[in-house]
C-alpha cells in the first residue's frame, strides 16, 4: 500500500516536471509543443499508447482554449486522475508565468535585440520541421487505408489551403467516421449472410 502511494506521488512529480520542461522549451505556442508532448508521453515515459495520444490530440484541437492545457489535463487524468491533471497543467503554465513576470519586471518589455530575433527565426524554422515530423509519425500509425488517407488529405487541404477553422474539420471528420463505420458494419453483416 505504502509502495503504491510512493509510486503515485513520484508520478505526480514526474508529470509536473516533464510538463514544466515542455512549457519551458517551446516557443511559438500550441503546435510547437506537440512534438515534445508526443515524445515525452508516448516514447519516453510511456504514459499513453499511441492511439490514446491521437485521441488526446483530437479532443484538444476540438475544444476551445489553450490547447496544451487540454493535453496536459488529458494525460494527467489518464495517469493519476484529477490531481494528476492539476500537476501536469500547473507544470506547463508555470514557466510562462514566471518568465513573463521576470521579463516585465526587469526589462519593461522585450527590446529590439537582433540576437533575440535571430534566435527566434531559427527556432521557428526548427518548429516547422518538428511539427512535420510529428505529423508523419502519427500518419504512419493512423493512415492505414483509403478512408483514413482521404480524410487526412481533405482535412489538410481544408485547413492548410482553404483556411477553414479546425473545429469544423473535426466535426465533419466525426460525422464521416460514423457513416463509414455504419456502412462497413452493414457490409460485414451482408457478407455473413
Amino acid at each position: 500500500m505504502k509502495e503504491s502511494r510512493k509510486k503515485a506521488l513520484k508520478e505526480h512529480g514526474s508529470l509536473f516536471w516533464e510538463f514544466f520542461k515542455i512549457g519551458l522549451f517551446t516557443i511559438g505556442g500550441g503546435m510547437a509543443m506537440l512534438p515534445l508532448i508526443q515524445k515525452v508521453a508516448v516514447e519516453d515515459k510511456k504514459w499513453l499508447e499511441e492511439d490514446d495520444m491521437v485521441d488526446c490530440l483530437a479532443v484538444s484541437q476540438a475544444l476551445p482554449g489553450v490547447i496544451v492545457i487540454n493535453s496536459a489535463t488529458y494525460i494527467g487524468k489518464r495517469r493519476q486522475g484529477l490531481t494528476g491533471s492539476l500537476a501536469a497543467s500547473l507544470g506547463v503554465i508555470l514557466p510562462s508565468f514566471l518568465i513573463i513576470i521576470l521579463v516585465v519586471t526587469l526589462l519593461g518589455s522585450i527590446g529590439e535585440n537582433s540576437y533575440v530575433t535571430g534566435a527566434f527565426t531559427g527556432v521557428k524554422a526548427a518548429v516547422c520541421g518538428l511539427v512535420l515530423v510529428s505529423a508523419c509519425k502519427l500518419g504512419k500509425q493512423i493512415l492505414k487505408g483509403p478512408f483514413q488517407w482521404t480524410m487526412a488529405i481533405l482535412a489538410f487541404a481544408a485547413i492548410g489551403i482553404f483556411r477553414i477553422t479546425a473545429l469544423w474539420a473535426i466535426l465533419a471528420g466525426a460525422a464521416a467516421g460514423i457513416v463509414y463505420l455504419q456502412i462497413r458494419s452493414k457490409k460485414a453483416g451482408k457478407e455473413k449472410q
Partner: protein
Amino acid sequence: MIILYLFSMFFRIGLFSFGGGLAMLPLIFQSVQEFGFMTAAEFSNLVALSQVTPGPIAVNAATFVGFNYAGLLGAVAATLGVCMPAFLLMLIVMKFMEKFKESRGLQGAFAGIRPVTVGLIGAAAIFVAETSLINGKLFSMKLLEDPLSYINGIPLAIFAVTLLLAGKFKISPIKITILMAIVGAVLCG
C-alpha cells in the same frame, strides 16, 4: 474587484477561442481594449513578447495583462482564468468518453477524427512555415513568379536540417530547439 474582472474576462477568452495560441490574440485585444486596458502599441508589444518567450501564447498574454494592471495577484487571476475553461471542459469530455466508450457512434466519430488530426497537424506546419520559411502564403502564384524573394534561405536550411535530425537521427525536440536558437542568433542575428 479588478482581480475578479480580470479572471472573468480571461475565462471568457479561454472559453470562446478555438484554434489556440495566435487565434486567441485578437479576442484578447478586443476584450482588453473594451476595458481601456491597453493601446495598440502596447498590444503589439504583447504579441512580440508572447511569441519570443516560451510557453502557451495565451498564458503569456494573460500573465502580461494581469501583471501590468493588477500586479502579481492580477497575473494569477488572469492566468487561471484563461486556463480554467480548457481544464474543466477536458475533464467533462473525458467523463463523457469514459461513459460512452462502447457506443458505436463515439467509436465511429473517433475513427473519422483520428485521420483528420493528422491532416490538421500537417496544416499547422504550413502555418508555421508561412511565418518563417517563406514570405506570404505557401499556395500562391508568387512562389512561381519570384521564388528567390519569396524563400528565406537560412530558415529553410534550418528546417531541412531539423527534418534530418528529428526524423532520421531521432534527436530530442528540446536539443534541436536549443541548437537552432543558437544557429539562428549567429546566422540571422
